[in-house]
């Protein structure tokens, strides 16, 4: 059972470089729940930006490095659905069928979990004793919900946060328009998709929008800030942290 095994955290590169507070929140949460963990200091990026742009050779460099760093871990937990999807579903395809690298990739794909998936499905935790006063809405990130099937777990965790009211926005499962380098390469289309997401968030009448992927939240926050909106963006680790 993964339940009693020590956890290795893959922090994710955007959390590491732009949102260290999300990493800190995750660490405090694990400490509060008394979940033993370690954080390999050599970790960088899973390779998703290169992979989604088509640069498979470069993505493979990242994949090999990730495998080398994390393969000795029992359980890997990451606060990002799309990175977990990358490791779990795309790594094996980067290597030749039947090769030893592919075997190592498949081995690692079985032991990586997204944060809320780990808390709810593996540990059976729904109430982590968190408190947040206000109304929140939940943005369902695409790779998290469609490729990993994680839709309920974050909502259950939010439902147990004291004094916090979850208000579903319209089309919570619709893309926010981030799409990695797409947001930079096709800004007109990305912006148009994001505008709609922002409208739905504003219509929900909430204090904060919560998500499990900092990349989508960075996109959403970017436009909320541009529109001088007072709505905050919170990674779920921040909502759950003590």
């Amino acid at each position: 059972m993964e339940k009693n095994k020590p956890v290795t955290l893959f922090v994710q590169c955007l959390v590491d470089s732009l949102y260290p507070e999300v990493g800190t929140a995750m660490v405090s949460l694990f400490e509060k729940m008394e979940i033993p963990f370690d954080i390999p200091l050599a970790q960088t990026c899973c390779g998703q930006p290169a992979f989604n742009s088509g640069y498979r050779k470069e993505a493979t460099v990242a994949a090999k490095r990730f495998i080398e760093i994390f393969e000795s871990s029992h359980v890997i937990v990451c606060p990002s659905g799309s990175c977990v999807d990358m490791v779990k579903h795309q790594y094996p395809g980067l290597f030749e069928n039947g090769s030893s690298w592919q075997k190592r990739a498949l081995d690692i794909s079985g032991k990586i979990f997204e944060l809320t998936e780990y808390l709810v499905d593996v540990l059976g935790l729904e109430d982590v004793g968190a408190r947040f006063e206000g109304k929140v809405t939940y943005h369902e990130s695409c790779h998290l919900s469609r490729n990993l099937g994680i839709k309920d777990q974050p909502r259950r965790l939010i439902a147990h946060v004291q004094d916090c009211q979850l208000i579903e926005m319209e089309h919570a499962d619709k893309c926010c328009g981030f799409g990695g380098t797409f947001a930079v390469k096709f800004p007109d289309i990305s912006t148009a998709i994001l505008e709609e997401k922002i409208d739905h968030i504003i219509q929900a009448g909430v204090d904060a929008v919560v998500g499990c992927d900092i990349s989508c939240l960075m996109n959403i926050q970017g436009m909320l800030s541009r529109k001088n909106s007072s709505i905050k963006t919170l990674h779920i680790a921040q909502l759950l942290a003590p």
Partner: protein
Amino acid sequence: MVEIKTQYYRQNAAKAIEDTVLQKALSNVQNRLGPATARMYKDLPEGPGLRQKAHEIREASINHLDILLTRLAAKIRDRGGKVYFAKDAAAASAYCLKVARANQVKMAVKGKSMVTEEIGLNPILEDNGIEVNETDLGEYIIQLAGETPSHIIAPAIHKTRKQIAELFTRELGIPYNEDPPILTQAARKALRKKFLEADMGLSGCNLACAQTGHITTVSNEGNIRMSTTMPKIHMAFMGMERVVAKLADHDALFRLLSRGAAAQNMAGYVSYIGGPRTKDQLDGPDQFHLVIIDNGRSQILADPTFREALYCIRCAACLNVCPAYGKIGGHAYGYPYSGPIGAVITPLFVGINRAKDLCCGEPLCGACKQACPVDIDLPRMLLALRAKLADGDPEWGVTRANPGEKFAFQIWSLIIKNRKMYDLALKIGTLFQRLLPQKNGYIPAIPFVLKGWTQSRDIKPLARTSFLTQWKNRENKTNRKNKS
């Protein structure tokens, strides 16, 4: 030949986003059909698993395409029908023209067909003095307006009631009226005359069946049935992938097609056509021709990476959920096939470099795969196309699309390979960002490659100390404490 405008994807997308009428129409069609189709999959008596079953049916059909097409052709020829295998668009149109000339055809009525858009049939017939009348209401509207379809199933969604009223007043000479039943009646009246006068009926084919030797067409207006039974000649066009082995396969696929296309249990009219009328039949054409079109499909069939694209039954369910299509509409894709399926097959048809923006210009959200009635993994193929553009591919004649980006990712791969290099890069980044303006803790404008981001969004600056460095410092402190 159809005009290819895939290279203007960005410009046409930007124009579409500014078009408020189009934006409203797109959001209406997506909100109406997207969720309704998803609900109908759930309510299938066999459960949503029927999509995977249909995927297997299509997979088996494509893997045995040679046998199925031979059987289909033999059955139709046995009944006195003619079957022509066209290697490309030019051959298909030339065959149609030859038959039309041999029979002194002056006017044709036509059921909605995407493959005839692909081969550019109408302009060729018209250039040769043959009048072609689209009879699907949406197609009829855009033909009168001199436009092209913007949606695979709902070709005129980009037009408003008011625009159609003005168009009908101008083209059909009726008094101005915006009432849909009155407009529909006007079209019906004008088309009825055409049906009665036409020498030739043209149609597509939704799916053929090898076992029985039939093609099947579906519609909700009855116009395809009239186009294929009233004129003396019926010529049907099909992409060579549109066949399944057994009649039992049709049942599952048509129920899924109707759900995917229009959230219906079954389309209003389903016709099975296997040849010209027999001597004892009063109705039906004297000649039946089936044109089976390759036009690049063999190359797709030969590549295991993209073969799955041939499973598509052109229902447009993926268009109805795609966030990119929902903003840019069909015309931006610059080729008859739009939306996620268009983003995959158009590059394969017209050249991957030429249509590179189509396969790179969506956020890879995966909604299309979930909506597809035959569970085609479109995101996987979009990624495969991007990989070909990234490094070039001799088999598909692809050259590296962006050497600058390649170089950037090569540098990136060196940086992420070494945590010290990575920390150094972050350090340089934090120094560079000091030169940028800040507003309430955010950066509102970044030059060069990230300029697209700040067009509409602010961005948080890089943290002064990365999380990993913070963690390392904390660990070191604890260790020192423990030692002392």
